[in-house]
């Protein structure tokens, strides 16, 4: 399966197993979504389980909260992560804090799915990676898969979770892994082991990172599209990197991260989002606190630049293998 099909399958499985699961979002019903992630689900489960909605992200999140309080498990799609902000107040002030403020008497198990990231010539309003902002909001779980297998398992876990989950989908990976070189021919997921996805129900646990490649030279911490770029960059530079795919940003699997960096003594952190106050900052802060005495060189961040995502300069903006290579050089230095 490709990543789109894996997500579709997760929702198919959950709609079939649990009558309280409903999907909602702009163009997701009859049309099946602009990225076709919900294709065929309205036909299969009916218009009352797979709802087309008005173009109103704030209203989508708010009504999803109300539906969840009334016993449903809404999975709401925000068409692009760039358009999640009109729903930000309902997410940050309401969804994230309902359980807390009501001392557990109310809660809203809402999953918000949204495609993020660049590399598809989407320009500044179809390429953003706002995950860091959500990780700062207590009460939200924040996840981002990097492959079809994890995508399906994580989405099932998210839907089953009694806490709200913001589920970011790196849209550049929908149809295949991507190593950061737009010049190369596209590779389909069928050539990748994580493209093998079981039909039925399974979970990938939230809050558990995966070491996708063991190594001893340095640790690369990443998630989403950058996991693939990191792998290619390390291979190209001949670096025996231990590569960690976080999968969950919050709650964070600090143990796996810190164990690795304490072992390798060197660390590169990578994400597509802009650097300043990006999630790499929190990762850096945690790693330096827990691995300080083991660190052999400063932690390096490989990120988007601190500008909006410009349409014409997509590949100068995108954190490419060259940016990794430069980071590796500093990270491999010794005192």
């Amino acid at each position, binding site marked *: 399966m490709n990543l789109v099909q894996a997500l579709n399958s997760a929702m198919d499985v959950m709609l079939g197993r649990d009558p309280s699961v409903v999907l909602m979002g702009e163009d997701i019903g009859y049309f099946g979504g602009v990225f076709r992630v919900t294709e065929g689900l309205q036909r299969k489960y009916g218009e009352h389980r797979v709802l087309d909605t*008005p173009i109103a992200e704030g209203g989508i999140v*708010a009504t999803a909260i109300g539906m969840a309080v009334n*016993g449903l498990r809404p999975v709401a799609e925000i068409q692009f992560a760039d358009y999640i902000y009109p729903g930000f107040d309902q997410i940050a002030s309401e969804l994230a804090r309902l359980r807390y*403020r009501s001392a557990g008497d109310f809660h809203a198990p809402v999953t918000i799915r949204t495609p993020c990231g660049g590399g598809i010539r989407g320009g500044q309003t179809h390429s953003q990676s706002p995950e860091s902002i959500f990780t700062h909001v207590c009460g939200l779980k924040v996840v981002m898969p990097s492959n079809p297998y994890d995508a399906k398992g994580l989405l099932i876990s998210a839907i089953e979770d009694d*806490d709200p989950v913001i589920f970011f989908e790196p849209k550049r990976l929908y149809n295949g892994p991507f190593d950061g070189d737009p010049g190369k021919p596209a590779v389909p997921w069928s050539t990748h082991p994580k493209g093998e996805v079981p039909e039925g129900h399974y979970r990938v646990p939230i809050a558990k990172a995966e070491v996708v490649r063991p190594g001893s030279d340095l640790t690369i911490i990443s998630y989403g599209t950058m996991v693939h770029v990191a792998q290619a960059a390390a291979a190209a530079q001949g670096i025996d990197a231990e590569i960690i795919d976080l999968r969950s940003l919050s709650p964070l699997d600090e143990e796996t991260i810190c164990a690795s960096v304490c072992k390798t003594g060197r660390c590169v952190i990578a994400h597509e989002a802009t650097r300043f106050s990006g999630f790499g900052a929190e990762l850096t802060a945690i790693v330096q606190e827990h691995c300080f005495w083991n660190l052999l060189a400063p932690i390096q961040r490989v990120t988007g630049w601190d500008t909006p995502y410009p349409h014409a300069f997509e590949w100068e903006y995108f954190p490419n293998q060259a940016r990794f290579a430069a980071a590796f050089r500093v990270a491999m230095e010794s005192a």
Partner: protein
Amino acid sequence: MANTSRLHLPPTPSRPGERPDFSYLQISAAGEVPRPDVNARARDIAALSVEMVRVLDEADDAVGPWHPHLEAEELQVGLRHMMLTRAFDDRMQRNQRAGKISFYMRSLGEEAVAVAQGMALRPGDMLFPSYRNQGLHIVRGMSLVEMMCQLLSNTGDMCKGRQLPVMYHSARQRLFSISGNLATQFPQAVGWAMAAAIKGEDHLAAGWIGEGSSAEADFHQALLFAAVYQAPVILNVVNNQWAISTFQGYAGGEQRSFAARGPGYGIAGIRVDGNDFLAVHAVTQWAAERARTGAGPTLIELVTYRAAAHSTSDDPSRYRAKDDYAHWPLGDPIERLKRHLIKHGGWSEERHRALQGELEATVAASWKEAVTHGTLNEGPRLDPDLMFEDVFKEMPANLERQRQAMRAERSGESWRK
């Protein structure tokens, strides 16, 4: 530059030192507004949104097609709930002034809104209140002690100390958790109602916001989603004329009634004398029947007056005339129902006085009990460990570590490393 400005600014008819002028208020005579069928199409009953449904007339009689013909006993219960709400408010206000609670918000002058509406709905209906609808909690039978414990953030606090005073909730009594963020509950109520419809259940949802809060985006989202999916929901705008210091004109009330937004969205809109218990009850029942029969949502504007300060942190003498409430043309909801009941419902000044005394005693006794669960300054106190619970269903490792750190900090130990 100000001299040449052509920007229109809504007038405020009652500033300090001025004589309050409520002549802007369009008031229909009691009994005057027709009562359409509950299944009428929104577009055909738009007039309801600018007229004002009233039942109690100047002679304290109940008149016209909206007369709900409630039993005298039920009206007496309504009167009692309103009086209890006011007695509770009075006492809590004094408690705050005496430093016994940190903050309070009264509903003085608007008690009919929450009480009559609460009584017109069914126990299975889900209520999404604002912070000024304590009458709903009273009607649903939340105990005064429980409410007081919330105000005290003591060991009996249903919010476990997380919320400001007055932000009650009760899942069992179907009273949603009150938010400090204005208007957010409005589209949530619509979502709840959508789910009821999806599940094929008969319950409806009702939400309340102030007229000032109707300016928030959530108001629009609520109306829009309610209209699109014809959700079984009642959306109430309590127009008490003020939002802290700001007059309702700044929420758009100068140009048109708030109820009139309804027909614009294809939703039934209805404007009602919010200080007329009978009219509020009748209109709410009408809207409830509408929702339950699948005829769709209703936007109700309840015209009333915020007779007291916005909250105990507010000083209205800075921005409005002192004797404003005395000039308010729709009177006092308790006084009006009382007079009607004396004339028609076997009520009397004596019974009224006796009830008043009884309710004050109940409030006083409840307070006595509430403080045994802890006061602002004396124990027992909620365990600060609770701070880390309910962020998530299960506490993640980092919060557990922070809880340990907080414990160490409190015990004076070092907790780093």
